[in-house]
């Protein structure tokens, strides 16, 4: 069984956010971590390795320094790492990103693709389902548990007020919630392996069945009109009234804001 986990190196949002002049993120200027939902997806794959001997490949798209996140994954137990990096792929929205990753995946063997539900930088949750569409395979998003049964996966799919137990035939794509599991730590042996592991690096030419018009900033249907730091909210009104006036004041505000 072959599992490919798509992981993303994301800025550690605690460190503040920087922009390029064109409004896209200046990823080079920020501290990075492995996206938490992706890490849960990786852990799920590593458990399939422990249990069934699955081969786990991690795939990422990013700047050359995104290689670090692949090595971290290998140190946790992944077998191989593939980095897709190319100048022409930069500035991609979720459409162009999912086209890129699908182009890479067409050159890989997989029974199961796992992505995180969403990344903490973009918070879109779109790339996983979009990859599945480009590859014409089933998707199960928001997985809170995962097991294998023959040639199928059985997944608990979380919703707001319920979950569905779903069965999909492989090959398929699952998006993982951070609560799927508690990711393991890197091991000393794993770190040793990771240091000498060879990372496969692919560029534009290594993507299969993708047109240039679907890649990078130019291939992105969505464009940024404006981006800015959020303005911190200052103090609002403060009143000192007797209790019944206080109540009327609060109820009035809730009505004004259409809360009630």
């Amino acid at each position, binding site marked *: 069984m072959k599992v490919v986990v798509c992981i993303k190196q994301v800025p550690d949002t605690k460190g503040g956010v920087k922009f390029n002049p064109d409004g896209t993120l200046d990823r080079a200027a920020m501290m990075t971590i492995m996206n938490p939902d992706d890490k849960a997806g990786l852990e799920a794959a590593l458990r399939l390795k422990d249990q069934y001997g699955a081969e786990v490949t991690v795939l990422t798209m990013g700047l050359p320094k995104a290689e670090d996140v692949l090595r971290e994954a290998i140190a946790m137990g992944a077998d191989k790492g593939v980095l897709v990096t190319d100048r022409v792929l930069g500035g991609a929205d979720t459409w162009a990103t999912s086209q890129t990753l699908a182009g890479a995946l067409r050159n890989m063997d997989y029974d199961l693709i796992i992505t995180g539900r969403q990344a903490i930088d973009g918070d879109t949750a779109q790339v996983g389902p979009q990859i599945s569409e480009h590859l014409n395979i089933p998707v199960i998003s928001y997985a809170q548990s995962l097991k294998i049964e023959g040639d199928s996966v059985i997944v608990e799919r979380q*919703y707001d007020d319920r979950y569905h137990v779903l069965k999909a035939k492989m090959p398929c794509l699952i998006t993982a919630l951070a609560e799927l599991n508690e990711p393991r730590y890197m091991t000393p042996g794993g770190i040793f392996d990771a240091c000498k592991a060879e990372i496969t690096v692919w560029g534009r030419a290594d993507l299969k069945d993708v047109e240039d018009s679907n890649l990078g900033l130019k291939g992105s249907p969505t*464009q940024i009109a404006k981006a800015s730091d959020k303005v911190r909210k200052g103090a609002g009104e403060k009143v000192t009234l007797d209790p019944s006036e206080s*109540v009327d004041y609060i109820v009035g505000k809730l009505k004004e804001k259409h809360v009630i």
Partner: protein
Amino acid sequence: MNLEEYKGVYVFAQQVDNCINNIAFELIGKGKDLADALGTEVTAVLVGSSVKDLADQLAEYGADKVIVVDDPQLKDYRTEPYAHALASVIRKYKPEIFLVGATAIGRDLGPRVSARIHTGLTADCTQLEIGDFPLAPVPGKEQKHNQLLMTRPAFGGNTIATIACPDFRPQMATVRPGVMQKRERKPGVKANVEEFNPGFTPDHKYVEILEVVKAVANTVDIMDAKILVSGGRGMGSPENFKMLEDLAEVLGGQVSCSRAVVDAGWKPKDLQVGQTGKTVRPNVYFAIGISGAIQHLAGMEESDIIIAINKDESAPIFDVADYGVVGDLNKIVPALTEKLRTELAKTSQG
């Protein structure tokens, strides 16, 4: 793609168990604003099994037209048949804008549909308006008018971005629930219904539902709550939290608390808001008897509306509160609960 062919604002009218979700009415409300700005109409797309009877509700909240896609394959939400339904509607009717709720369903459905149609999708929008792109004229670049400008937070709310989709149609967005206003309901309005069934033939992309497990009440995560009634040390005792539970119940909210309350053993850790607890962003956050240490503020200052009640007028919580009330919570909270109960009883009758 001839962009001129695409007309009208369409919204996905999400229903679960044949009960329309509030987000559908909110999208119709926002859709009406956008349609007014464009001189066009709002169409709700209702997808499910035996859902036709629900169409009038959508009209009562302002939908000019309702497209009903009704098929037994659509009984419970599954990505593939629902994506097929929406993609087929888009191909046939060519809307210029298509809005979907940023719910656990919409955030799976939206991306699958946008990828099938080849258009852009902006996630989890909190503001939508019609305007120019680029916002200001840029030499050598065509400025397009009547574009959907979609604004959304990113980086855990640290930044705000406004996105456009100038060259593809429909312009698609998922919209955060609880942010847009629904219009006032007009009882008795009948829907202008058009039925459409593109045909549903199960293939390898149809997943099988083995079981539907509904959550037991009381396990709601405070991070998902739309309204939080949060108490601090100023509550005085664990018994006094009953006041907050009553207030939360009336508003359909949840109770949360500050670290001091957890440290005192009054409430469990999973209700704690703040740097060492959970980061919450409800529509309304009541901070009651909470002084507002910086660690607490870090966990809640992104809330849309913050209402603070505290007897200490110099409490730092008032620095972030939209509406601060200096006074005795023991007198104000129970009276507030009663007043809201009366008010809400009035609205539900009207």
